[in-house]
């Protein structure tokens, strides 16, 4: 039952990164791809009706982590205190900039909102990568399941590297989304940036294998011990190739799908490599929090599975409906637009 929740949590986090990823990525590129007011309006209104729903996946994942693995929630959130507070402040700035941008019809106000929106999106993409980097590297847990990482220890070399990778992945995802959804110059710029970022993504993706092996040997061993899990890195690699092909053929709907599959591939690879750890300790430290020692009692987990399944069905319904409504592309692209909600 604990393992089921490990998988469900991984699924929710993946859905979060795929969905909020495209609006975070669009935000990170906002100032570059959209130069004039009409263009910036185009970007912000493309994500305007959906970003909040996307962000809820983060809150819901947090809630599920709290419910299923309270020890991890307690240990990780207090140990990474500054990282978490930074995320909060960036989320506040970003949410307000996006929602309040349309409230005043003043060029300075709108520019200010654009800058805050873009910088906070960029910051969040990096911080999420840094957080994942710290989890993969492991944290200095004590026997009670707590630790403390000062801000500049959160920003260690490996985590920063993953942070940059995170930014590049989400920026590519956002660029692909804008190439699909936007029109005119924004689309052209986004398409060009997406193609360029692809190379950076390729280099970092393979470049990270070495450093990851250096900080967490058993992650790769874990994957090779259960050969079927190799399907995840293969999925990521395949999706990366597909992304390259579809970007060149200008099939941006499919390119976006490929980018989503790439994110799915890397996150599932990570989850499979970490299992059964939920919050691993540094290599050699025996205090890691695993599905066995950090999970809530099985009765609660069983009950939750019932309401969770029901709630997710409802949620999938709302999202499919809303995305169909908002992303009903002009004639001829409907089929591709509906591909959006399948993940």
């Amino acid at each position, binding site marked *: 039952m604990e393992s089921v929740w490990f998988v469900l949590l991984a699924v929710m986090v993946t859905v979060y990164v795929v969905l909020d990823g495209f609006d975070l990525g669009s935000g990170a590129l906002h100032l570059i791809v959209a130069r004039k007011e009409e263009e910036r309006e185009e970007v912000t209104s493309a994500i*305007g*009706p*959906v970003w*909040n*729903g996307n*962000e*809820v996946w983060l*809150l*819901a994942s*947090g*809630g*599920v982590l*709290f*419910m299923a*693995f*309270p*020890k991890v*929630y*307690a*240990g*990780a*959130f*207090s*140990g990474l*205190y*500054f990282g*978490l*507070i930074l*995320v*909060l*402040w960036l*989320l*506040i700035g970003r*949410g*307000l900039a996006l*929602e*309040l941008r349309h*409230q*005043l019809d003043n060029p300075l106000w709108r520019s200010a909102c654009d800058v805050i929106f873009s910088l906070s999106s960029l910051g969040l993409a990096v911080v999420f990568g840094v957080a994942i980097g710290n989890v993969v590297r492991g944290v200095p847990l004590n026997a*009670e399941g*707590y*630790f*403390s990482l000062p801000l500049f220890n959160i920003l260690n070399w490996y985590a920063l590297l993953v942070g940059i990778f995170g930014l590049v992945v989400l920026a590519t995802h956002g660029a692909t989304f804008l190439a699909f959804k936007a029109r005119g110059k924004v689309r052209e710029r986004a398409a060009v940036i997406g193609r360029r970022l692809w190379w950076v993504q390729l280099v970092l993706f393979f470049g990270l294998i070495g450093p990851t092996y250096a900080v967490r040997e058993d992650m790769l061993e874990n994957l090779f011990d259960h050969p079927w899990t190799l399907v995840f890195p293969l999925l990521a690699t395949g999706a990366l190739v597909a992304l390259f092909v579809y970007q060149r053929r200008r099939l941006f709907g499919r390119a976006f799908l490929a980018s989503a599959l790439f994110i799915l591939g890397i996150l599932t690879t990570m989850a499979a490599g970490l299992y059964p750890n939920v919050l691993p300790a540094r290599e050699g430290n025996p205090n890691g929090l695993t599905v066995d020692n950090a999970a*809530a*009692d099985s*009765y*609660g987990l069983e*009950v*939750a599975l019932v*309401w*969770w399944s029901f*709630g*997710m069905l*409802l*949620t999938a319904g*709302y999202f499919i*409906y*809303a995305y169909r*409504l*908002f992303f009903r592309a002009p004639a001829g692209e409907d089929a591709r637009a509906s591909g959006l909600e399948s993940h």
Partner: protein
Amino acid sequence: MSSEVTVDRLQFTLTITYHYLFPILTMGLALFIVYFKTVSYAGREGHRFRPLRKTDSERATAEGAARFWTKIFAVNFAFGVVTGIPMEFQFGTNWAQFSNYAGGVIGQTLAMEGVFAFFLESVFLGILLVGADRVSPRLHWLAAIAVFVGSWLSGWFIIATNAWMQHPVGYSTDGEGNVKLDSFGDLLTNPWLPWQYMHNMGGAAITGAFVVGAVGAFYLLMDRHHHFARMCLRVGVIAGFVLCVLQIFPSGDRQAKNVFDHQPATFAAMEGLFETSEGAPLVIIGNPDTRDRELESTLEMPKFLSFLTSRNWTERVTGLNDIPEDQWPDSVPLVYYAYHIMVGLGTILLAIAGIGVLLLWRRRLYTSKPMLWTLMLAFPFTYIANIAGWTTAETGRQPWLVYGLLRTEDGASPAESVPAGTTIFTILGFSGLYLFMSLLFIVLILRIVNQGPDDGEAEPEPAGAQPEPAGAA
């Protein structure tokens, strides 16, 4: 209590109090947006259901009102969302030992809030805000209802969580001394839950009613938007009156009974009662002196407290003297005054709404300047009453974080992980951010109010020259 715990409490007090200012109006206004939307969508002249028997011009005014209040709602909702995210996060960052201790139980309701309420609310708010031009009127109406249901469900899950902290049920203690869930049914049917929920949502709806009424009064005093203003005033005072009555009885009365039955120390602190007595007086004006352990009362009603709690003039009410001091709320005067501010304001607000209804019936509400001024300026006090009520509930529960199970000082994050200085730093950050946000909020709301509803009346008109509202939607 160590300095870490003190600053952790301070930060939570700051962030929860500031956050809650927004959901009060989100939940309160959602109700009225549904009302206006329903009148606009389903109303017609020969409707069998009397409240929906509306002329085309009334329906147009209601549609204008729905759109106007949706604009305010959108800004308010955005502030509520961004200030709400820190709440869930802080359980982990500053209250890690509490999360570890209680996550197996309250994780259920908090996760359910995300899965059942937030998705519903955020997706349909997106639909509501893209406007009636891009979606059908029926979908737009349904979106308003979905947003209302989402926000009230969200409140329900939060109250379910708080009710468990006030009155833990359906749990047992595991081998490590943490709680685990034993009965999901008991968690959701906590006897504390229904009355606290009704009292809390009633408080939010009262704020909604008074805010709607205040804007109506403002426009009449400014001699603008007469049709809209009258509709808002009418709806505001009638709803305000009904809700204020329900707030006192049954929900307030029953909630006090819950506190009396399950939290005797809290109840004694709320009433400032030191001496245990059979036939306790209800003190209207008085000051609890914790040093001399007496209530210096200037105005009291003999035996009334006993009667109110149990409908029995000689019911025994336990005073603080018979409760060990380490189980008293850590600030008895704070609990006492917060409670009395809530009750006092509630009574005054009931009177204001009652006079409003009376004047409406005598057809003098729209012209009575003193009444319009009163209604325009009364709404901030509904916020104070809401916050005072929560202050009573939360400081009244002290010294417990989970009543009877976990003391507040044992719930904070370990000092080694989150030292006091770290939290002081983030308190300063939150304070600065929230100060800036408050100014922004006021500017944006005043701007929407100044623009007014879209009823074809562009500028403030001289008296007597009211244009007709725009055609039916």
